């Protein structure tokens, strides 16, 4: 019983908690670096969610090897490979966004001398 509940829900709960925590920090925090950390945590949550919907308890990994059979009696038993490939894409895009955001943050620090969003807004131009 417990096991079935966990199989159904634990990864989804984990993914959504990460998403919520990341969104909360992004919306409330004043420090630019913290905001980027929040974006990264949101990213992780999304990735976990997408992998979780591809999985079922009897899944095998989607790679043909000598002992790993993906198709049994004409039915596919492996984990869904499509969301996995989408997540590969999403991870790399996340890295790109993070690198650009950090660069802008460094430049902001060079020009304003602070990382605090409120102080940046107060400084006119």
């Amino acid at each position, binding site marked *: 019983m417990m096991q079935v509940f966990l199989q159904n829900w634990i*990864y989804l*709960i984990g993914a959504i908690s*990460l998403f919520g*925590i990341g969104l909360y920090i992004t919306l409330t925090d004043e420090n630019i670096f913290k905001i980027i950390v929040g974006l990264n945590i949101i990213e992780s949550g999304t*990735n976990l969610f997408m*992998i979780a919907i591809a999985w079922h308890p009897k899944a095998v990994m989607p*790679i043909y090897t000598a002992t790993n059979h993906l198709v049994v009696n004409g039915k596919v038993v492996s984990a869904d490979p499509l969301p*996995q490939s989408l997540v590969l894409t999403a991870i790399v895009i996340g*890295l790109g966004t993070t690198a650009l955001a950090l660069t802008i*943050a460094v430049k902001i620090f060079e020009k304003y001398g602070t990382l605090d969003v409120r102080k940046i807004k107060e400084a006119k131009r």
Partner: protein
Amino acid sequence: MIIYVATLVVIVVIALALIAVFSKKLLSSIISMGFVSLGVSGLFFFLQAPDVAITEAAIGAGLSTAIFVIALKKVKKGESADEE
């Protein structure tokens, strides 16, 4: 059985994310974010996605944390230069 281990990992990951949120020091926030990525990459192994797990470990946990630390170092250098 493995689901219980996964549950434990999920709880640890959420705790680390909370540390990343509420920690006052930027460095510890960044490091725990790296560990969140690492934990998530461990969960990908449980979820039968070795490709994604390797990529997340190399890119999400490794390089992205490294870039964070480099950027932080640049900012910290500027801060100490201002104080002088």
